């Protein structure tokens, strides 16, 4: 969006990347868990590897850290090939999902470990440890053992320990998944702030789309060892490249349709249009639930250039607090529509008729076999 991207052999490249993965392959026996992965990360960028469990995101992170070796391909940091360099020579800070603090050392000793390995003087170490601990607001717990800390505090120690060595790349492996919801929100902001403040290139592994969307500059959506799409949170959400991305990031309606001769799409007896042309006859139509407008009183379903309209019958209502979900039946296909709740909710009942309308721009069309 802000940076120029060049397409080369179908691979998105950026000028002078800080971290680059080229043709990375990882096989366990005959099972290929990562296939031909290409990725470039800019200096100072926070990039998320997003996907369901088993998609290869953690494997990719561990290969960047050097904890596992790729079966093929090249990993470079700042132009230096690190593919065959042992983890202790890579200069990366890794925060584990389980934090992996040294249980026999105090908080201060944990944070000091990486500095001691680098042979810094005692005074320098004490100084840097104090700074790192104050950055995560844990100065007062320096002499505690990890087991005496709460999950959130352990998480911050792990972050301070990874950052104090001023690594060339910060790697975060699901760092927030063991925290409760409220703490997770806090830590999200805190990690993003620290990352921005230090300008450190960061790779963030997560299965949580909200974390990826809210914290990261770019998102890499992965599935089955392959990259589905790389883009800014906005691009990923508004212009998903595949049906998987559309349904994994944000919620979406998914309805089967058929392409007609004039380029429209038939869903039951309704004809709709899309901004993106369908590539094949059998298609899947996707519309985000909150992008659909319900007109309870309208009867006309006449289409125009910018909006799709279709008659629908209300089949179910689900109240979720912030939003209310209306389940509609459109010629046998289900459409879910979400509206923000209000105090004085107008009451609708099963069987009520309405006209649903949504923008042609919001209509995503994919081939049915994708």
């Amino acid at each position: 969006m802000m940076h120029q991207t060049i397409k080369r052999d179908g691979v998105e490249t950026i000028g002078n990347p800080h971290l680059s993965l080229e043709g990375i392959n990882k096989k366990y026996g005959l099972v290929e868990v990562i296939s031909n992965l290409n990725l470039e990360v800019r200096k100072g960028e926070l990039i998320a590897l997003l996907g369901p469990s088993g998609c290869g995101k953690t494997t990719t992170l561990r290969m960047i850290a050097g904890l596992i070796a790729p079966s093929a391909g090249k990993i470079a940091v700042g132009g230096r090939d690190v593919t065959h360099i042992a983890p202790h020579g890579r200069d990366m800070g890794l925060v584990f999902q389980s934090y992996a603090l040294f249980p026999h050392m105090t908080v201060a000793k944990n944070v000091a470990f990486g500095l001691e390995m680098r042979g810094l003087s005692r005074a320098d170490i004490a100084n840097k440890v104090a700074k790192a601990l104050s950055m995560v607001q844990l100065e007062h717990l320096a002499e505690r053992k990890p087991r005496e800390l709460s999950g959130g505090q352990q998480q911050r120690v792990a972050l301070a320990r990874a950052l104090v060595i001023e690594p060339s790349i910060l790697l975060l492996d699901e760092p927030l998944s063991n925290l409760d919801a409220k703490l997770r929100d806090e830590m999200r902001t805190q990690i993003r702030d620290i990352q921005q403040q230090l300008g450190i290139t960061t790779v963030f592994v997560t299965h949580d789309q909200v974390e990826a969307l809210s914290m990261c500059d770019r998102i890499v959506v992965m599935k089955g060892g392959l990259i589905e799409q790389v883009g800014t949170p906005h691009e990923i959400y508004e212009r998903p490249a595949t049906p998987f991305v559309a349904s994994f990031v944000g919620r979406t309606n998914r309805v089967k349709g058929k392409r007609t001769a004039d380029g429209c799409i038939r869903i039951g007896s309704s004809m709709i249009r899309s901004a993106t042309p369908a590539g094949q006859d059998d298609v899947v139509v996707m519309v985000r639930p909150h992008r659909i407008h319900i007109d309870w009183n309208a009867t006309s379903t006449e289409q125009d250039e910018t909006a799709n309209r279709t008659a629908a019958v209300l089949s179910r209502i689900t109240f979720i607090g912030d939003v209310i979900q209306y389940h509609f039946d459109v010629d046998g296909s289900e459409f879910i529509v979400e509206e923000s709740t209000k105090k004085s909710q107008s009451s609708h009942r099963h069987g009520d008729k309405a006209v649903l309308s949504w923008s042609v721009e919001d209509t995503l069309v994919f081939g049915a076999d994708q």
Partner: protein
Amino acid sequence: MTTATFDMPVGAQKPSSTAGIAVALLLPIALVNAIGFILPVFNLARMSFNEALPGGGIAEAFTAANWTGLLQDSFYIELILNSIMVSLGITLATLLVSYPIALYLHRASGAWRTFLTVLVISPLLTSAVVRTYGWIALLAEQGPVANVIASMGFQPPRMMFNTTGVVIGLTEILMPYMILSLMAGFGRLDPKVEEAARTLGATPFRTFWRVILPLTLPGIALGCLLCFVLSISSFITPKLMGGGRVFLLATEIYDQAIVTLNWPLAATLSMLVLIIFGAALAVYSRVLRMIEG
């Protein structure tokens, strides 16, 4: 609290009845222990204050002569120190050869781990006597080990009927106990923690020294306690492999009780072994507190 976890009918959930069941279940083993162990130990303690008469006679008395005699006799002082030193040496040797195996087993998984664990335990299925004879055959003057050393052009050392033989035999015999104790104490060793050390810039050696070793100390302490206690009280292997030339506490107790028939002295030596056990246990709990603290 405990009663609530059992699905007992209403009325049976009285704390007093569960306490009653606990007493009933523990009573048999408590009785066996009291009659079979605690009582004889008191007997032994009493015996050590009796007076030994020439020819194996025992005179009822209450004299500390056995104890003072023991502690003034340079032979016995040396015997005690020698026993402790040999046992510590055996414990150290057992630890050194068992540690890598235990670490590997800790990291192995699935059927491979089960197979290897069975392999480690399997020597315990054979009696120590049989295994000791096996070692005698291996380490004998013209045995396979000596032949291999000779074929490499070296003068084979004496490995049988001396302390070397006792150390080799007991080390092998105690290995399964050491490996199992180590594995039991490796619970805190999380592979992720080792990985964290590596990513923070620690070489494999420094990762071992700063992270793996400290985290496996509880296992090391447990294994060392067990092997020290087992080796200082072992009798068959030192007797057979020492060939009567290696003098240790256990063999001396046997000689005094069966050969010389000086039961009060044998009892005194036995009590001494018990005191050494107590000391080892005290050291162990102190070390454990240090590690955990």
